[in-house]
């Protein structure tokens, strides 16, 4: 008796609590007057915090441009690699623009917008004194890395370094500088722009050929990918490439020129 009542109550509560099926996400965003975008706040110069607490960077420029094109306000939510896909699925954010690599596994969970808006590869930054010449020379050495990076596993399997994973870039670079590890395994785009722009890296180099090119994608919820919302985003990204907006913002944010952006621009022009 009591069990059946409990079951009935549970069923009634479950029926009342629904996370709200979205009929037309694009219309919902326009009705709400704002789009909530998940961005990085610790990935200079793609997404970072200025000292007055404002988010800045290439991806923030992109997020603002999306909002302008939709005629709505933009709300930026800082995300990290471990929570961005959950936020999107839960509806906390409408869009991910957070240095997210496009791969088949993630495509099963969230809607990756094509074309890709950016691309990076895997490389290391190491002191020139270490005289590294090829990936194989990492075997058995301590190499700093970031927790949750997709390339950690691949590099470990192929070249067998002893990965020391840190939570953030500052911690990892500090460890690299005080000699706790021989190299820092990271994105070649970040390494190139650091080497080009920052004095503190004068004695460092990017010794290897960049491997495992990985395209970055902005993402919408999986069920929106083929709907009006996903198509609109795809249109916007295409236009970013076509109009040269991405190349221009890339340069304005002080990032080394990206061959991928040039290639896409030439292809779509």
């Amino acid at each position, binding site marked *: 008796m009591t069990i059946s009542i409990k079951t009935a109550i549970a069923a009634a509560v479950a029926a009342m609590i629904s*996370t709200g099926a979205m009929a037309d996400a694009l219309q919902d965003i326009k009705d709400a007057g704002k789009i909530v975008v998940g961005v990085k706040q610790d990935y200079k110069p793609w997404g970072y*915090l200025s000292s007055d607490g404002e988010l800045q960077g290439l991806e923030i420029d992109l997020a603002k441009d999306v909002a302008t094109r939709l005629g709505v306000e933009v709300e930026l939510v800082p995300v990290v690699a471990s929570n961005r896909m959950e936020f999107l699925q839960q509806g906390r954010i409408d869009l991910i623009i957070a240095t997210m690599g496009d791969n088949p596994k993630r495509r099963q969970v969230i809607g990756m917008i094509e074309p890709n808006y950016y691309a990076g590869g895997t490389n290391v930054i190491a002191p020139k004194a270490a005289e590294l010449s090829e990936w194989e020379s990492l075997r058995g050495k301590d190499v700093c890395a970031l927790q949750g990076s997709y390339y950690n596993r691949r590099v470990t399997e192929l070249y067998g370094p002893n990965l020391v994973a840190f939570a953030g870039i500052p911690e990892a*670079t*500090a460890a690299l500088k005080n000699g706790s590890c021989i190299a820092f395994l990271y994105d070649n785009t970040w390494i190139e722009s650091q080497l080009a722009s920052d004095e503190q890296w004068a004695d460092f180099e990017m010794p290897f050929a960049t491997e495992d090119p990985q395209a970055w994608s902005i993402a919408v919820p999986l069920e929106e990918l083929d709907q009006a919302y996903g198509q609109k985003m795809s249109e916007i990204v295409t236009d970013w490439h076509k109009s040269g907006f991405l190349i221009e913002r890339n340069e304005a944010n002080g990032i080394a020129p990206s061959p991928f952006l040039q290639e896409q621009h030439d292809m779509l022009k």
Partner: protein
Amino acid sequence: MRSNTPVRGHMAVLHPMRIRADALPLADRMFNIWTFSALMLAFAAALIAPAFAQEAAPAERSTIEILLEWTPTLAKGFGFNVLISILSMIIGTVLGVILGVLQVSQVRIIRQAAWLVTQFFRNSPWLVLLFYCILLIPFQLDIFGTTIPFPGWIKAIIGLSLPVMAYMSEYMRGAILSIPTGQWESAESLGFSRRQTLTDIILPQTVKRVLPSWMNLYAVLTMATPLVSIIGVSDVMSLTRAALSAEGQADLLIPMYLYILSWFFIYCYPISAATRFFERKYSVKT
């Protein structure tokens, strides 16, 4: 006249007890205003030392300038930590008192259920509880057409209040059981119901017994709030990390984290000092 060696015929127990002036606990002798000042001096030195080292390159901003520049942003994050700690403490305390009273219930099944809940949350890692709250509580609830949003920081408050509840429950149980059973019997003989005995006689007496542990728990909770940065709440810790990555200077890491540490220290030190004061005040003289 008093001798320390036992002498036949002299009974040491009959000497009147003298309270020695230096009866301070070790913790008080170790951590006082002087060690505090020393720590702050060391902190200042750690800040200034790199500044001297950088004098060669005057165009660079000194570490202190960078820290000051980021202070307003970081302070907002710290305020968030304080807010989360206060709200978790309030929720956890209220639930914990109820749960603690249930732990001494006369109904066996209630007592056991309360015990189980207490033990479960008391012995689970805080971070695991936080993760569960983040993942299991939906982003928003639609109940009767009203949308109740659950942003990350509210989930964090719920997640942190669970262990606080469990600890508080144990403190309450201990405090209630520490009150002599004779009081229950006297109250009963005076015609108090069990409920009246509890609310009018027993619970008021538990306040001073629980207070020091409760304040200690608050200090521990405040120290634990940086955990919420891992689940994506913009607290002082994630802002510090963002600041470090924006500045991109590896040698800023130690001063910046030390700076944040000193904020927590300055906030929590008075609490632990007050806790020791209350502990001494309410300690049973033997």
